[in-house]
């Protein structure tokens, strides 16, 4: 029964009004009095010794305020990495310095060499052209395996090699895994690539640094998913500013998908420069600049082996992955191919023995870090593709092969450290078969054939670990941060509330969905609840929004704070009604005494809290404001099953998505409309990865796909209407809302469905193609169909 408000209602979003009427407040909309503009001179070679940067001509040019180079940052810290990985031998990863402006070397096309601050953007750009940067070219390493060969050019001369770490998980199980594979009845092997992607939120990054001489406070306005994290990293590790003198504000942010998590050089620069120059300094990225400076995503090369017994049970899994770090370690980069990837290799299956090896490699490319799914799409893709391949080799139904290996008892302790709290993979698979109308496939196949087209069907399952994360656990795994979340709930005298959350919304609709939760708990109108986020000055320390964590962790913090509010409110109500606290019931915003018709309204209680005349002052402080910090005890584990139907034009290789169905288990759902929207967006990105998007470098480290002219973004005509379902719900057992999070699932589960479907189409047509690496662009599909 659909609700019209509170938890479970598809409340329309209140933030929409400002976005629809042009009243959104994005960082580039901010113009401060006296602001100057910065333009970065960036390396146009992938690798070189930075010999001399002659800024003299630039300094004298019209409008130039000052020109900065790496030398200006010699006393300033480099950009920190937030996660330290320990390798197979127990040694810490190799961790190079990451200066704000290049010092001594340039290591990727886009590496910033100098920064010109001027009165206008064009003047800054003009002056940047007058800078003479003397760079001695060095050979670039772009291919990961080549980068690891003896004698390969070193990206960082002070490291022993280009190997950041060689990670094994679980190392103690490796021998058993090897033995099981050796003796298995059947082993399926697949070598594949997970293609490098560029996140491309529609809003390019912006940073505005400001400094106040009267308060000594620095302010950074930035397009970030996590302003508190930026404040901590930048303040403590880069600029040496204590947090009480540093404010970071992320106003309306136009999408992030992970790329706006990290602390970037431009943020540190603008903050530093504003103080040095005593005036605001603004940087706005162009889209072309974004391609060479925003962190990229994915870029794994993997060999995966799945061993089965004679009854087609999975007995062992072994993977070897090369993961590209790029030229420097971005904030969370080392964790993505390790803890966010290796721990998902069990998937939905009972495989008892698993070993994952990851070699993280430095190359002369843009740094790589988390992008929607962050490690889980990589894990899911390789697992679901090798299962599909195994099914074909064994001549069994790929759906039934999965089903027979499903985990069915919970909690389930996987052999890769994580314990799934709850789930029902048969339910989502059954639901998928229903909504994907698989029964009608044969008829559709015949129709396609009549039109000269091939048609295929791909099905896969997925599970992911999100709602990150338990601090003690991630600390043991090398995280240099906690991953709790926070909320302060401030009730006003007249009954409205403000929730100040450490989460951040850059499209997820928290201003609406969070209000639904609090309003539902108290029983008041949603419009009485205001959600405030994005400004470190008025929100408690939180780790921000990514990893599908906002509702699971941020929402839980908010619930705990609201529970404290309600507990105190009950005491006040009890006093007002001269009853015992134990007899107080709260329903629909009314406190009543059980078994009587006495009641007081929420507004009476809140007023009493702030005008404490009839109030138990001996026992209770006035006021009604509570804070909670919530550290989750586990990850959450959304899971589901996806199906994709494609047509392939055999003359051109072009693939079109004819249908996509997704059955997800997100546990409890607060706003179904928002959840569907999150899945839709994730599916489009997964389809984009599978068919369109390709961040490609040539062998000299030049980016071949440096704009939308060559990087194919999904458009409306690349995708169909989706069929999404979240009615299968096994509520999360360990957070108060029972929610699992939904932000990344679509991007995690969809690439294998698409590729499985294309392979299916080709094989049904008698083509002997067992795998094609993403993106399955027309030319790549055609090449695969016509080679050998």
């Amino acid at each position, binding site marked *: 029964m659909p609700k019209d408000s509170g938890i479970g209602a598809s409340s*329309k*979003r209140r*933030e*929409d*009004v*400002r*976005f*629809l*009427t*042009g*009243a*959104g407040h*994005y960082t*580039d*909309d901010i*113009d401060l009095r006296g602001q100057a503009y910065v333009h970065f001179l960036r390396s146009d070679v992938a690798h070189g010794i930075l010999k001399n940067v002659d800024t003299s001509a630039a300094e004298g040019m019209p409008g130039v305020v000052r020109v900065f180079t790496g030398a200006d940052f010699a006393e300033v810290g480099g950009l920190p990495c937030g996660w330290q990985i320990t390798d197979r031998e127990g040694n810490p990863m190799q961790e190079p310095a990451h200066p704000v402006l290049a010092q001594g070397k340039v290591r990727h096309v886009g590496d910033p060499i100098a920064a010109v601050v001027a009165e206008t953007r064009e003047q800054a750009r003009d002056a940047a052209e007058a800078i003479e940067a003397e760079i001695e070219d060095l050979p670039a390493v772009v291919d990961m395996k080549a980068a690891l060969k003896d004698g390969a050019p070193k990206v960082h001369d002070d490291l022993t090699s280009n190997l950041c770490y060689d990670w094994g998980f679980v190392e103690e199980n490796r021998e058993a895994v090897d033995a099981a594979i050796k003796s298995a009845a059947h082993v399926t092997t697949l070598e594949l690539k997970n293609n490098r992607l560029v996140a*491309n*939120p*529609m*809003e*390019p990054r912006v940073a505005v640094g400001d400094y106040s001489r009267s308060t000594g406070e620095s302010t950074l306005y930035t397009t970030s998913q996590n302003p508190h994290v930026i404040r901590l990293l930048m303040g403590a590790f880069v600029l040496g500013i204590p947090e009480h003198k540093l404010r970071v504000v992320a106003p*309306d*942010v*136009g*999408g992030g*998908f992970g790329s706006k998590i990290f602390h970037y050089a431009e943020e540190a620069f603008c903050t530093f420069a504003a103080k040095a120059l005593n005036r605001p300094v603004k940087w706005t990225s*162009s*889209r*072309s600049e974004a391609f060479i400076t925003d962190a990229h995503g994915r870029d794994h090369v993997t060999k995966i082996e799945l061993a089965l017994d004679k009854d087609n049970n999975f007995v062992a899994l072994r993977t070897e992955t090369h993961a590209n770090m790029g030229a420097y370690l971005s904030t969370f980069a080392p964790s993505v191919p390790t803890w966010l990837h290796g721990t998902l290799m069990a998937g939905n299956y009972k495989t008892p023995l698993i070993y994952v090896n990851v070699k993280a490699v430095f190359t002369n490319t843009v740094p790589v870090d988390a992008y929607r799914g962050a490690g889980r799409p990589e894990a899911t893709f390789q697992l679901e593709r090798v299962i599909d391949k195994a099914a074909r080799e064994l001549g069994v139904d790929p759906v039934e092969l999965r089903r027979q290996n499903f985990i069915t008892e919970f909690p389930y302790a996987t052999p890769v450290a994580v314990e799934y709290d709850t789930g029902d993979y048969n339910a989502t698979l059954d639901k998928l078969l229903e*909504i994907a109308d698989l029964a009608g496939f044969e008829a559709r196949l015949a129709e396609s054939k009549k039109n000269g087209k091939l048609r295929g069907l791909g099905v896969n399952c997925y599970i992911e670990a999100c709602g990150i994360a338990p601090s003690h656990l991630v600390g043991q795994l090398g995280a240099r941060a906690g991953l709790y979340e926070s909320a302060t709930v401030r009730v006003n005298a007249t009954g409205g509330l403000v929730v100040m959350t450490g989460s951040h919304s*850059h*499209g*997820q*609709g928290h201003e609406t969905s969070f209000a639904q939760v609090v309003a539902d708990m108290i029983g008041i109108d949603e419009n009485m609840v205001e959600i405030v986020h994005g400004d470190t000055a008025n929100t408690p320390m939180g780790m921000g929004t990514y990893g599908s964590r906002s509702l699971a962790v941020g929402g839980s913090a908010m619930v705990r704070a609201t529970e404290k509010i309600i507990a105190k409110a009950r005491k006040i109500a009890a006093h007002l009604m001269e009853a015992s606290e134990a007899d107080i019931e709260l329903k629909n915003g009314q406190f009543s005494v059980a078994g009587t018709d006495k009641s007081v309204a929420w507004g009476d209680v809140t007023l009493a809290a702030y005008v404490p005349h009839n109030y138990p002052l001996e026992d209770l402080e006035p006021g009604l404001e509570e804070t909670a910090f919530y550290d989750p005890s586990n990850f959450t584990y959304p899971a589901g099953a996806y199906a994709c139907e494609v047509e392939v034009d055999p003359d051109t290789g072009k693939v079109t998505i004819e249908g996509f169905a997704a059955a997800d288990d997100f546990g409890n759902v607060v706003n179904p*409309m*928002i959840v*569907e*929207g999150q899945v*839709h*967006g*994730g*599916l*489009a*990105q997964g389809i984009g990865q599978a068919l369109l998007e390709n961040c490609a470098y040539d062998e000299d480290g030049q980016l071949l796909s440096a*704009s*939308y*002219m060559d990087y194919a*973004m*999904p*458009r*409306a*005509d690349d*995708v169909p*209407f*989706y*069929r*999404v379902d*979240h*009615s299968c719900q096994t509520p999360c057992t360990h957070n108060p809302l029972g929610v699992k999070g939904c932000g990344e699932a*679509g991007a995690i589960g969809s690439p294998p469905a698409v590729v499985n479907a294309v392979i299916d189409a080709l094989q049904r047509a008698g083509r002997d193609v067992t795998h094609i690496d993403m993106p399955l662009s027309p030319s790549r599909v055609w090449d695969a169909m016509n080679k050998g």
Partner: protein
Amino acid sequence: MPQVKMTVNGKPASGEVEGRTLLVEFLRENLGLTGTHVGCDTSQCGACVVHVDGKAVKSCTMFAAEAEGAEVLTIEGVAAPDGTMDAVQQAFQEHHGLQCGFCTPGMVMSARALLAENPTPSEAEIRDYLEGNICRCTGYHNIVKAIMAASGQDVSTIAAE
């Protein structure tokens, strides 16, 4: 610097511009109308779409000087003076056709242009028309649905769940 004069959202607007000043820069920086956004530099993403003399135009790919004397409509001029949103805006809210909101002004302006020339477009016609409007958040499903709804078509059968 040359002066440019035009009508924006029904009101006269003028300002000093350079030859190279783009219409989007004039709107955002001279007039403070920051609802029109810049999302790319290859004229593909459509976040900057406005109407010039009744036609959808990418304001990042037109100079302010070229709009001399023109009637320009931006996202800020779509809702009624009392704030009531138009049919397209309301449909976008009703059907969750936006998430981060950054592509939204351009989407709404393109949608309005579409409906002006094709009052009841099919799904395929809408998807084709939006070739120059990129959204990274919604996967387009609810955008297409919203535009169909705004045109008065029944969208209750469009599979959503």
